[in-house]
């Protein structure tokens, strides 16, 4: 009987953890769907959803290559309202190319890239509105 109780505990814990993970994934999905609206129909998605959980002043780093001759739209979201996620773009030498905090924490911004370059996009929560949450980043492009 003791063994079956142990199995039952494991099964119940697994169910509970699955439930928790699914709920978290659903929240991220809702944020991603909302964020996708910022891509509009003008921009073609790169086919990926970049997301991670952030707490307090943690920073997520997303590394990418932007191709020359392309205009990109970067959308950064957390929560169901705009302005909760601040994003900063740095070049390979660490120079800041853009930061949304300089533009009222804009949830999206367009970038005309004249020559191909490797960049890092840093995302951090707006501490005034959020202390933790799912951070979602979407990248779209047009020629």
């Amino acid at each position, binding site marked *: *009987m003791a063994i079956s109780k142990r199995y039952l*505990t494991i099964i*119940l814990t697994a169910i*509970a*953890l699955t*439930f*928790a993970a*699914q*709920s*978290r*994934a659903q*929240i*991220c*999905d809702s*944020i*991603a769907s909302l964020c*996708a609206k910022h891509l509009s*129909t003008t921009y*073609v*998605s*790169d*086919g*990926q*959803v*970049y997301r*991670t*959980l*952030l*707490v307090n002043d943690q920073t997520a*780093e*997303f590394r*990418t*290559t932007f*191709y020359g*001759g*392309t*205009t990109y739209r970067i959308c950064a979201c*957390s*929560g*169901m*309202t705009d302005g*909760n996620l601040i994003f900063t773009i740095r*070049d390979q*030498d660490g120079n800041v*190319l*853009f930061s949304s905090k300089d533009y009222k924490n*804009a949830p999206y*911004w*367009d*970038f*005309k*890239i*004249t*020559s*191909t370059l*490797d960049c890092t996009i840093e995302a951090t929560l707006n501490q005034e509105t*959020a*202390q*933790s949450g*799912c951070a979602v980043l979407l990248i779209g492009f047009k020629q």
Partner: protein
Amino acid sequence: MIFKRTALLFTAVVAAASLMVSCGPDENGNNGDDTTKIDSNANINVKVRGKIFSIPSPIQTAVLIKKTGVPFDKTILNPSDNSTNYSTKYQMALNLGVYGCDLGYLTMYEQNGDAMQYFIATQKLAEMLDVSDAFDKSLISRFQANIGKKDSMLALVSSAYRASDQFLQNNDRNDISALIIAGGWIEALHFACQTAKGNQDIINRIAEQKTTLTSLVGLMETYAGQEEYAELISQLKSLQADYEGIEYKYVYEKPETDEGKKTTTITSRTEVKITPEQLKAITDKIANLRQLVVG
């Protein structure tokens, strides 16, 4: 008595799980309690050494090829009939990426009949990989309804790939997601190598893949313990060695921002120098790698 204790245990476990969720983002996806601890390392995305890497869309290379005036060449595609040859999840995932890139190329060149065939092949592969929610029947109808509208077709394909990426992440199937990305990247580089023929814009695009390739190798190495990945990783690393000799020079320029248009123009530039020998070595290796993928 046992049932009573079990019920208590169940209540406690569910309460703990609920607490985990409530300690996570609320309905706004945020949480106002700064003492709350969340597993911030939860592997929702595919990460390599703590960083999240973005592999540029393979469709962008198809767009560049069309833009540079290279004529359409169906022989560079993986025939849609091949979709029935793939029997393992590994092969299916890689070729779902390949067909996504092929679809982008066909759409750019307005080969609408072929695009429809490839879309159906893609949908079948997605179904076999259990990601058919992202490529459901209604999507086929919408794709059909938008035939001839290039931008809408590209948007539909890309959205479907984004939905499948999201679905796979939610279901802890990051390996499949990574293979789809790898397949698309390999096909795009294969297109570029096959169409370069002295075209400097395309040659530059080939040379510009060094960082992406490094990310891809890191991504694939996450699954190095799985036997079927061994040859793929080995060939990617061999290709990586050829990129080592390419010269890159980066020059920073101050960006210009138009706040009204929410647009920043980035004029920093990277100059690349690739020799004909390096280009040939990459072309030969990507041909072998692509053969390994499409069979």
